């Protein structure tokens, strides 16, 4: 690295260390805010899904008097008839539509006769499938209703001298081969997203300050009169941006290591493969993304006319590296060599593998780093080209 690049880099690091905005985004957003938000999110999700199973729920049962046995059975499984609930099908439909009840059960007036005659005894479940919480409740109610139907059906067959298995042609057993660490990936898949965001946020203000900010303050013009190639000036600025991104990434990993110890993953039969060694490997994997991130942010920021404009555009840029992650989530892709060429996606896949306690594949990591660094270099070159325009001065 030539001397002027170091001089510029050192000055930008020093200057921004004195800037509250930069420090906030480097030291607070990534390292503290993101892990805390993550821990809270997971805790809330877990406590909701865990608590929901055992807690009794109240559900309007219209026509409960027609089916006392069924109602008793429901109560045994924690599904109690709601007091002062709606009393007709229409009222129940309204109540569910309004959301005052998740689910309602309507028992047909013909139920007692049909039940006694082993005929078509009907029970209606009123549910709003567009509500995710209501869907969970309705599944729970449905499972209990199914269990009741199976139980009574089996008793009837036995009373007729038949083995209940005659109506069950195939018995399905499920063998789950996932490990505790692999199951936790479903939740921890969000981790790369947070880490990438924190890394970019670490360099966010630096990228603006060293380009659009410098122009707005009027210090760009004197800077361009020093006998140093513009490429060196810009590379020095990008180097400083990368320093802050790496700092933010490192601190964020420390933050996550601490935060994850407060998440009761064991309660869901999960285990986070997250310790100092894994964190160091994740750091290495994501570090190769920083030059690309810095180059993109610098390119965009140096194209804008003012600090404010740069802020607006860069906020959009923050979303770009998260797109491959969304895609990966939708398509459920597995790591292979061709995907390793795609920046951010490759890092996401590698980090996910690490969290699954799979040893890091060094060939994959090498391809991922090469791809990201190449694209980073290309975009840095483009930013340097843009830095040579005369309109740069505004």
């Amino acid at each position, binding site marked *: 690295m030539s001397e002027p690049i170091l001089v510029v880099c050192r000055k930008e690091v020093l200057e921004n260390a004195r800037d509250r905005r930069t420090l906030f985004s480097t030291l607070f957003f990534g390292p503290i805010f993101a892990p805390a938000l993550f821990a809270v999110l997971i805790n809330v999700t877990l406590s909701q899904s865990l608590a929901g199973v055992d807690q009794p729920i109240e559900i309007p049962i219209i026509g409960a008097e027609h089916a006392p046995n069924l109602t008793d059975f429901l109560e045994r499984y924690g599904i109690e008839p709601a007091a002062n609930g709606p009393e007709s099908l229409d009222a129940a439909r309204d109540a569910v539509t309004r959301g005052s009840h998740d689910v309602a059960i309507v028992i047909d007036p013909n139920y007692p006769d049909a039940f006694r005659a082993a005929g078509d005894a009907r029970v209606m479940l009123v549910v709003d499938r567009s509500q995710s919480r209501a869907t969970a409740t309705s599944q729970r109610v449905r499972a209990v209703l199914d269990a009741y139907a199976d139980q009574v059906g089996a008793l009837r067959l036995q009373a007729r001298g038949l083995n209940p298995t005659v109506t069950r042609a195939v018995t399905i057993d499920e063998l789950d081969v996932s490990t505790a660490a692999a199951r936790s990936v479903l939740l921890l898949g969000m981790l790369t997203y947070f880490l990438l965001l924190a890394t970019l946020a670490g360099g966010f203000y630096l990228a603006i300050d060293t380009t659009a900010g410098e122009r707005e303050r009027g210090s760009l013009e*004197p800077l361009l009169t*020093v*006998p140093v190639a513009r490429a060196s000036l810009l590379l020095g600025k990008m180097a400083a941006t990368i320093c802050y991104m790496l700092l933010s990434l490192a601190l964020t990993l420390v933050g996550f290591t601490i935060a994850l110890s407060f998440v009761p993953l064991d309660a869901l039969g999960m285990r986070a493969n997250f310790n100092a060694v894994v964190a160091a490997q994740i750091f290495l994997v994501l570090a190769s993304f920083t030059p690309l991130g810095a180059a993109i942010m610098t390119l965009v920021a140096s194209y804008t006319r003012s600090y404010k404009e740069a802020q607006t555009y860069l906020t959009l840029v923050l979303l770009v590296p998260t797109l491959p992650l969304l895609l990966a989530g939708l398509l459920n892709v597995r790591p292979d060599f061709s995907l390793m060429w795609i920046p951010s996606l490759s890092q996401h896949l590698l980090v996910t593998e690490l969290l699954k306690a799979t040893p890091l594949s060094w060939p994959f990591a090498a391809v991922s780093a090469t791809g990201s660094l190449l694209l980073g270099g290309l975009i840095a070159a483009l930013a340097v080209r843009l830095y040579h325009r005369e309109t740069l001065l505004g």
Partner: protein
Amino acid sequence: MIEVSGISKRFGAVQALDGVSFVARDGRITGLLGPNGAGKSTCLRILYTVLRADAGTATIDGIDLRERPLLARRQLGVLPHGAGLYPQLTTRENIAYFGRLHGLAEPALAARIEELIARLDLAEIADRRAKGFSQGERTKVALARALVHAPRHLLLDEPTNGLDVMATLALRRWLEELRSQGQCIVLSSHVMQEVAALCDDIVIVAHGRVVAQGTAAELKHRFGAKSLEEIFVETVTGA
């Protein structure tokens, strides 16, 4: 010595400079005088190589700006429009940054900074951050920064803009001191009294062209002993 010969510059539909020629000699202060928008800043920007002329040549001690801009910049100290200091850096750090970018080694740089702080009367604000500086303080620091590598040529764009009387007088004194050391100084201004008080050679620019040039005495002689003010108005409106 700075020699400008027939430089032109166009921004889109606007012809900012149209064949400007003049010579700024060592040991003299040359003033580019003209109304706002005459092309003074564009001309200086071309001289300090952040813009390239469309046509014409400009040299600094014989170094062609277009061919060897980095070498030319070594001979130049620049005080652009607005001081452009780094608000989070102290006076000392602001000067040191440019010193390092000019390739000065640490011991020499430190000595040079002390010298400038003493000469430009900066001791009081030497270790304060530039954030809250007055316009006068900012200009002083920017001047120290421009002089850190002891350039033989100094380019100043509207240096007295926003300065109070005391700061203006101090700046004048320093420029005169630099001139006595044999420096070649070019400054731009739209304030005629200032140019009259400070400059040895006057180049009047209007609409991107040089409409008159010479010493104050030469100009007065040529325009029939009119005041500089009358000459200015006559040349600018006649152009």
